[in-house]
């Protein structure tokens, strides 16, 4: 016999809580049961699900402020039917670097959104953060599938994996936040805005974890995951778009906007323009970027200020209005935002002039 340490966990542990607990306990238990039905049928250690339930119960009483993470092993498949639970909330590190890095990255992302913006996870309702590592074979990508994060291991040539950079994890989870808020269409300018928002908050996750000022931050996306076939330091630079690696063709200004049929209209290329606007606003405002420009971008996103098909100009105006609402008309923050969008050629600069003249 295999001497298996695992067993099929009967859902009755949670169901009992759901039947007999206090109203809050019952709701939490039901939430846990609903996390993912596959969790219940997986062969996992008996204690795992009980620990998860206890964690969720604690959260229900605390009203947010702590993540609920589950890392799965996709076992190099591209479906998730055979995924195994590797590490859940409250458990110590396991013997798998990707699993631990993903776990930590999800935690850092949760921390930025909660500590800086009081957002309780992707849906602001304590949604569990699920990650699948070892997705596919030599898979050169990471993505948010609408419910969980998938991390390939990379082919070792172009990429060495995707869990080592926490800004990548912040980027992906932010696609979930955008989907939950603005719902920006993933094509053309609205797609490039969708991409840029993910880069902005991905970079902020890293800056928050390192407690850096806008001046100290490297403003790079994907540092430390490039393989030997790519020459450079990262995939994108918000500080200097187009300079992160040898094939980086991101524009800094509207005059360089790239029209292409590839990549849904160059969403990963033209994001350089709003990325650079954020960098300019953040460094002009100074201090910790999440408190100034980050706050403005977050409020613009979470208030649903633009339509799903918004173009750069509409988003720029929305951030300017948010800055004026948060910090005042003609405030240094509002001027910084206006000047940033003007510098990248999205706004014409009239507002900036008005503000400067008082």
């Amino acid at each position, binding site marked *: 016999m295999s001497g298996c340490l695992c067993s099929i966990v009967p859902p009755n542990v949670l169901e009992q809580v759901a039947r007999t607990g206090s109203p809050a306990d019952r709701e939490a238990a039901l939430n846990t049961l609903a996390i993912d039905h596959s969790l219940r049928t997986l062969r996992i250690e008996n204690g795992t699900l009980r620990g998860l339930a206890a964690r969720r119960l604690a959260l229900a009483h605390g009203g947010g402020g702590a993540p609920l993470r589950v890392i799965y092993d996709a076992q190099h498949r591209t479906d998730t039917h055979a995924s195994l639970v590797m590490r859940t909330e409250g458990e110590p590190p396991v013997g798998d670097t990707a699993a631990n890095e993903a776990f930590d990255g999800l935690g850092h992302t949760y921390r930025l959104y909660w500590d800086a913006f009081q957002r309780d996870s992707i849906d602001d309702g304590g949604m569990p953060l699920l990650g699948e590592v070892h997705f596919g074979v030599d898979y*050169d990508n990471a993505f948010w599938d609408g419910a969980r994060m998938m991390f390939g291991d990379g082919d070792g040539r172009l990429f060495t994996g995707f869990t080592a950079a926490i800004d990548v994890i912040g980027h992906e989870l932010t696609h979930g936040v955008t989907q939950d808020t603005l719902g920006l269409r993933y094509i053309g300018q609205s797609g490039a805005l969708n991409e840029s928002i993910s880069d902005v908050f991905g970079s902020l996750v890293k800056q928050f974890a390192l407690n850096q000022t806008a001046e100290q931050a490297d403003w790079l996306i994907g540092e430390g995951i490039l393989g030997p076939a790519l020459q450079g330091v990262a995939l994108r630079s918000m500080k200097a778009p187009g300079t992160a690696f*040898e094939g980086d063709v991101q524009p800094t200004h509207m005059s360089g906007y790239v029209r292409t049929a*590839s990549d849904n209209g160059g969403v990963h290329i033209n994001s350089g323009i709003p990325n650079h606007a954020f960098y300019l606003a953040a460094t002009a405002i100074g201090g910790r970027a999440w408190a100034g420009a980050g706050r403005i971008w977050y409020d613009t996103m979470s208030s649903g200020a633009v339509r799903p098909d918004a173009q750069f100009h509409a988003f720029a105006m929305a951030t300017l209005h948010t800055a004026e609402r948060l910090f005042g008309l003609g405030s240094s923050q509002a001027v910084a935002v206006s000047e940033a969008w003007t510098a990248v050629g999205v706004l014409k600069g009239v507002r900036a002039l008005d503000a400067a003249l008082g």
Partner: protein
Amino acid sequence: MRRSDDGDQLELERSGGFAGLTLRALVPFEELSQPQRAAVDDSLSSPPRRRPQADRFQYQLRVGERRVVLEEDDFPAVLRPLLRRLSVTR
């Protein structure tokens, strides 16, 4: 029999993904198996509905003047072995 127009090769392109890298490969038709040729023809003649998803790959197949863009999940499994030929374009 070998045709002389540029319809005698498949131009394969992968774009998107988190990295947004564009990779390409040219595959002579004579190196495609019959099922692979059928899959290419099928995709070109009845393109699936586009539904862009954040950071997924998208594939473009081009044969001569005919062109189709496929989402990652719509890329025919029988063509997967060709992906090894993709390389970064500058």
